[in-house]
């Protein structure tokens, strides 16, 4: 019945369009016992899957508390950081060590793109690959990614970093959000 509830809450139209989606409606109401057995089976499978996945949490290890997670023998706080500034017209990537020593820097402009082409996902991906190549030259394997801005290169740069051979272990969003500070520019009239 929980399956039915979820399906019902998502597709309110099913009440009106039941004749069109006749097959699921028929199986729901005629074989209640079968549905209950399926629900029990699904719960058992979910428990088994969650037990295998329970060691992984989406939250990062906090510096104050001990955690047993290690990447290439390093703790979370000692892994280099890749700062990605994804503005609307350009994407810049800088890989920095955990002690804030610069390791590699690349941007769409340094990769040969000009003007409007810098503000594309393709340019961001090539920038990611170039930055990853320079960073692996300095012995970096795992990185924590910090993204700033909401541009076209936001996801493409991370993909480029992984394609270039670096392993991303965490993604942080550091987009500056004003708590109603400066007034932005006026609305565009298209």
């Amino acid at each position, binding site marked *: *019945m929980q399956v039915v509830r979820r399906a019902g809450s998502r597709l309110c139209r099913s009440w009106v369009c039941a*004749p069109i989606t006749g097959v699921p409606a*028929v199986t729901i109401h005629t074989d209640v016992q079968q549905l209950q057995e399926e629900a029990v089976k699904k719960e058992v499978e979910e428990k088994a899957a969650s037990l295998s996945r329970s060691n992984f949490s989406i939250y990062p290890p906090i510096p104050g508390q001990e955690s047993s997670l290690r990447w290439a023998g390093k703790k979370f706080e000692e892994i280099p950081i890749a700062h990605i500034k994804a503005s609307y017209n350009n994407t810049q990537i800088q890989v920095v060590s955990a002690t804030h020593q610069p390791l590699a820097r690349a941007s769409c402009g340094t990769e040969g793109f000009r003007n409007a082409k810098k503000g594309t996902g393709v340019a961001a991906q090539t920038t990611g690959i170039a930055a990853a190549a320079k960073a692996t030259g300095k012995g970096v394997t795992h990185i924590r990614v910090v993204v700033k801005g909401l541009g076209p290169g936001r*996801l493409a740069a991370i993909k480029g970093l992984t394609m270039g051979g670096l392993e991303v272990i965490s*993604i942080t969003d550091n987009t500056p959000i004003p708590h109603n500070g400066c007034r932005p520019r006026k609305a565009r009239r298209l």
Partner: protein
Amino acid sequence: MAKHLKLIARTVMVQEGNVEGAYRTLNRILIDDIKRRRYYEKPCHKRQRESYETCPRIYNMEMAHKINFLMQKNRADPWQGC
């Protein structure tokens, strides 16, 4: 200078590189807010947009409540045979 610890808030750990989708859904509300702040939204437009958004929200919540209530009982299939 920074009053909060860095790299803890708004951070998602990546599991074999396939949590980018989960990261996006995590950030969905933040992204809408950032998009809105790019250009200034006048208070009159903001009030109109808020009231426009609450209408489907109220309807969806009431409908979900109604469906959950109705589903508490097993009923005969009204469209059996279709």
